[in-house]
């Protein structure tokens, strides 16, 4: 039985002597884990908030009868109740409203029939249900009920009036009931809901005679055919679960992208851990040699080193989880904003912290720490006592390793390329490929650095004299440590370059697309609940009035809606358009030969967006598309494929007259006006705003203003990406700092000798900064091609597979200059402290061995 206590005591003593190194390791792990956790929490909170409010509305619903874009004829419900005698059915009319008094976020207003509700939902379930409210709830127009927790902060109570804005019109509603949810989850669920009687909801939303959908509880699937049999062609029967998964499906790619980005930070963090552990091993080589001579076994050493980093990793991971929870509060806002902009309305009240996320964070932190420590621990274990005692052993080993690293690079790159090339693995495989390529590039860093330094030494000699020769040589000589620092910095900077190029390309592609597509001068639309979707309609009299406005020479109108495509098994955005807002400038991804402007021939078929082709893996030319219309399924030939960056789930464009006939929906949601040349557009916009003032709140925007708004949404979308990029830099910076600090500590004696033999303090500073600057420069230079490759992968593989968007890659020299600057500055900053410490050191102490 061996006693390991003395070994542990050794470790503890070292920790006390050199806390800084270990603190850096802990911080590295912590930041990596924190990013993961915060992204995970934000993603999770958003989808949980959505699920909660969906659950509150879904209740015990198992199935749902959905209609077309216009909802469902209420006669379907009557038939269900009367003809079929089906009792477990509840009609719903719902939509989003803005209520300034309750805050800026859109609120879901759910119109229900209280008599049909009890089997489905029990909002009125607990506490002081307020029975007096029920008569006004039913009989009084615009009566609403909401949660006390929503009303109270706004200073609202029973009997108070609330102005809600629906589709640009203001309505005065009265609070006739307050719900007091007893538990927290119910309170959260109700925090974004207003209830009204179905009559009120129909009137508020202008949906008289229509239902949004009918909720069903179907205890036995055998009942479904009978229900199906009474449904009109436009209606379809869906499971409620498919509704609840909607947000996960919609935002899956978005969430995965964020998670992958946070993983990148952890990869950089792993370099850091590897670096620190390696260094602590290298530094203790003499000690380990002595220990081995004293009879400590290889296993004991291995376990010691591994256990050390495990414990430190655990400490880092715990801190990281804590930090992640704090960061999560911020990231959740960014992520929710994007989900609201692009997908669905989500109102996240608080960050929910599922234990699984915390556990995952802890595990990943600890595993990363242990994984990064395995190689150094293995090395310490394998080395014979006498080589361990020899200082040059490590450097000798890494030189032997260089060819193998080259091989590893080649193999890993091949694996990465294969993963990226293979379609089957989907997005996860694509990201795995991206990581493989990135890690391979990191493995290539030591050989590349070695070669570069050999070249640079004579060059430096010529340019800067002896110091110019010393710096590269020292870097080349201590490759086992410098290369890790360079690799970490390179990885981080290449991620910055890659992501920057991707976002820049994305942005310029969108700008170009907006310029091509939005040719009209003035755009009119109701203020939408989300920035990319507005199902509201413009008052037809206003459409007519603005279209005939003096100076308006041409118009284009559009009506977006969600329709069901049976072949795809999901709903797709359908934009019904009359007139071409792009004046024939729309960029086509595919169109038949000889057709100049397929848009003009819309009457016969549909045009689909590239995102739909890529998302659904459609061939080119695409086959005819079947859609569920109000008169049953109809099949449309696809006339062309268009570039469109407005919806990552794909869009179908159709002639508005055809749409109106098939879906019995004449409404117009957006109006684009072309004005005569020489007209003052801003003045015209003001005049129009004056003319419709008080009739309907509409956004009337000039071309310029609309593009501006679109780009604002775009920039908001990438705010979280930028934040992640910044964190990756911080992790890299810490990595470089710790690597340089290690180097300095190791070279204390050597530098002491140099100082003793006449090196001035100035020269010492120059040497240190030259070295660190060189490290930064090498990392920055290496990051450029790697960053380019990453950008290529992000643009042509990840983006296409995630969102179905083809972007035109735009290379701006600025990104590369910037990355070089970041790398060099980070390295120089990291060099200041070691230089300062060395400068202040008494030479005699430095020369004396530890």
């Amino acid at each position, binding site marked *: 039985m061996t006693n390991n206590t003395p070994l542990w005591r050794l470790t503890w003593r070292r920790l006390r002597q050199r806390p800084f190194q270990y603190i850096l390791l802990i911080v590295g792990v912590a930041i990596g884990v924190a990013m993961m956790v915060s992204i995970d929490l934000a993603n999770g909170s958003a989808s949980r908030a959505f699920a909660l409010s969906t659950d509150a509305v879904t209740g015990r619903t198992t199935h749902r009868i959905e209609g077309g874009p216009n909802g469902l004829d209420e006669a379907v419900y009557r038939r269900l*109740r009367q003809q079929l005698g089906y009792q477990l059915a509840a009609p719903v009319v719902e939509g989003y409203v803005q209520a300034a008094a309750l805050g800026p976020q859109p609120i879901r207003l759910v119109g229900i029939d209280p008599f049909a509700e009890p089997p489905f939902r029990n909002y009125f379930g607990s506490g002081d249900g307020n029975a007096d409210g*029920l*008569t006004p709830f039913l*009989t009084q127009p615009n009566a609403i009920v909401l949660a006390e927790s929503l009303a109270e902060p706004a200073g609202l109570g029973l009997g108070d009036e609330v102005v809600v804005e629906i589709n640009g019109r203001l309505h005065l509603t009265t609070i006739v009931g307050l719900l007091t949810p007893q538990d927290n989850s119910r309170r959260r669920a109700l925090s974004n809901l207003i209830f009204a009687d179905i009559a009120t909801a129909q009137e508020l939303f202008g949906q008289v005679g229509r239902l949004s959908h009918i909720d069903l509880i179907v205890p036995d699937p055998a009942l479904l055919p009978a229900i199906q049999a009474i449904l009109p062609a436009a209606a379809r029967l869906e499971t409620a679960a498919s509704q609840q998964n909607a947000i996960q499906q919609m935002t899956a790619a978005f969430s995965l992208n964020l998670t992958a980005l946070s993983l990148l930070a952890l990869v950089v963090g792993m370099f850091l851990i590897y670096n620190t552990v390696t260094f602590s091993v290298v530094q203790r080589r003499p000690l380990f040699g002595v220990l081995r001579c004293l009879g400590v076994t290889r296993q004991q050493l291995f376990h010691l080193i591994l256990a050390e980093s495990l414990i430190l990793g655990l400490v880092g991971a715990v801190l990281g989880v804590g930090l992640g929870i704090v960061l999560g509060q911020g990231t959740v806002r960014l992520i929710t904003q994007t989900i609201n902009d692009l997908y669905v309305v989500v109102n996240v009240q608080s960050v929910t912290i599922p234990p699984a996320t915390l556990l995952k964070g802890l595990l990943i932190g600890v595993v990363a720490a242990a994984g990064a420590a395995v190689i150094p621990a293995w090395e310490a274990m394998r080395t014979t006592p006498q080589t361990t005692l020899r200082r040059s052993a490590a450097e000798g080993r890494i030189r032997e390793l260089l060819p193998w690293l080259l091989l590893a690079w080649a193999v890993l790159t091949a694996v990465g390329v294969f993963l990226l090339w293979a379609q089957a693995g989907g997005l996860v495989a694509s990201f795995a490929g991206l990581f493989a390529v990135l890690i391979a590039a990191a493995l290539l860093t030591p050989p590349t650095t070695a070669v570069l330094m050999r070249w640079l030494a004579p060059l430096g000699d010529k340019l800067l004299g002896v110091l110019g020769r010393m710096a590269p040589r020292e870097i080349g000589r201590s490759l086992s440590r410098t290369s890790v620092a360079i690799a970490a910095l390179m990885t981080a900077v290449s991620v910055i370059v890659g992501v920057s190029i991707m976002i820049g390309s994305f942005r310029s592609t969108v700008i170009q697309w907006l310029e091509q597509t939005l040719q009209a001068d003035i755009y009119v639309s109701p203020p939408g609940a989300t920035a990319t979707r507005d199902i509201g309609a413009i008052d037809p009299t206003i459409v007519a009035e603005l279209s005939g406005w003096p100076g308006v020479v041409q118009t284009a109108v559009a009506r977006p809606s969600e329709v069901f495509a049976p072949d795809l098994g999901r709903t797709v955005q359908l934009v019904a358009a009359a007139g071409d807002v792009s004046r024939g400038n729309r960029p086509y991804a595919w169109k038949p030969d000889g057709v100049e402007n397929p848009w003009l021939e819309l009457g016969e078929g549909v045009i689909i967006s590239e995102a739909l082709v890529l998302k659904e893996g459609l061939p080119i030319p695409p086959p005819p598309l079947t859609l569920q219309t109000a008169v049953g399924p109809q099949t449309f030939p696809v006339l062309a494929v268009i570039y469109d960056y407005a919806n990552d789930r794909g869009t179908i464009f159709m002639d508005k007259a055809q749409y109106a006939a098939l879906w019995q929906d004449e409404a117009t949601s957006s109006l684009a006006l072309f004005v005569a040349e020489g007209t003052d557009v801003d003045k015209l916009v003001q005049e129009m705003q004056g003319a419709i003032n008080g009739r309907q709140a509409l956004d009337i925007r000039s071309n310029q203003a609309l593009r501006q708004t679109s780009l604002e949404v775009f920039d908001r979308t990438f705010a979280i990406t930028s934040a992640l990029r910044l964190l990756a830099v911080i992790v890299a910076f810490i990595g470089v700092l710790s690597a340089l600090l290690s180097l300095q500590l190791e070279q204390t004696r050597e530098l002491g000798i140099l100082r003793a033999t006449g090196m001035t303090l100035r020269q010492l500073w120059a040497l240190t900064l030259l070295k660190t600057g060189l490290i930064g420069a090498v990392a920055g230079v290496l990051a450029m091609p790697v960053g380019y490759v990453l950008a290529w992968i992000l643009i042509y593989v990840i983006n296409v597979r995630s969102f179905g968007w083809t972007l035109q890659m735009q290379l701006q020299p600025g990104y590369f200059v910037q990355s070089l600057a970041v790398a060099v500055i980070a390295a120089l900053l990291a060099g200041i402290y070691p230089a300062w410490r060395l400068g202040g050191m008494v030479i005699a102490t430095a020369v004396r061995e530890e």
Partner: protein
Amino acid sequence: MVKRVGFVILLFLLATGWWLWERGGETAVSPTTTTSSFLPLLTDDGNASRFARATEPNAVQFPRDLGAHEDYQTEWWYYTGNLETADKRPFGFQFTIFRRALTAEATDTASDWRTNQVYLAHFTVSDGENGRFYERERFSRGAAGLAGAQAEPYRVWLEDWSVAETTAGEVRLQAKTEEVAVDLLLTQTLPPVLQGDGGLSQKGPEPGNASYYYSIVQQKVRGTVTLPEGVLEVTGVAWKDHEYSTNALPADAVGWDWFSLQFDNGAALMLVQIRRQDGSLTFVPDGIFVQPDGTTQLVTAGSWQLDVLDRWTSEASGATYPMGWRLQVRELGLDVEGRPLMPNQELTGTTIYWEGAVQFNGTLDGRPITAKGYIEMTGYAGSMIGRI
């Protein structure tokens, strides 16, 4: 008449409904229990005075008054009947649609769903052979075609439960649940009987404590009763009451006992008494005796005597009900004793009351006579509110 008058039943509805609302439908949801928690809707919201009230004799006219009277606060169409198969297997059924106006003024806005009218239906089948009692309650708004009542052609319905005229003098009554269903043709044999003073049935001492009330008795029934075991052909006799009022009951009433007997000689008898909390009678409205030829005579308070022969305590509600009666009406020479088809005919929905098929035997003018009928007893489970 008094049978089912507004205030007391609504008092129960209020109390139990309130409690259900509070409890919030935490009841397990299965396709067979769709208890609504919206009964507080059926409370007097203090604006009874703004509704029309029953004050005039001879105001009821046909067919005009077969439908709904939305300016009165409360209304019901009440069908009860005694059925049997060819091999004499006995059944009873009750099918009632209640209407309640939430406000005196109709609210008319754009949506079809907007209404101030609420409908409630009770449907029961008593299976005498197996002693099984099937009951179900439903609610709906009286709008969007979901529930309503119309005079011409006569139709009263709540979703797929309905009574509707098929030809003159004949209605089809249909109701079903997962377990039980009835599909019956009811053929009128006598003209409608105007209760009280030409259809004005006084329920209390105050003017306006009254309802408009008519009955159609001795209707011939044929059709089917569907049980879990299968479909059975049945024939029998049915009684319809239609009554509308605003705040009809005296203030101190807690419940009533209502008797409807249909004699084998073609005659019929309706009696009612309104009780106070302590069991004493606060008011005894006029009853009516219908001769086989349709001529009627009032049976006034004091001219009849009721003795309780037996009692039964409900396990469901804990309420104890009379469950055996001796009824004597001196001026008719009637002396009969009655028993329920089975004791358990208590409705345990949002309002707890006993409404069940009964069988009476005895003498009329010295000649042996039998009668089938329904008895309704409300207010016995009053103290049990909150323990459903």
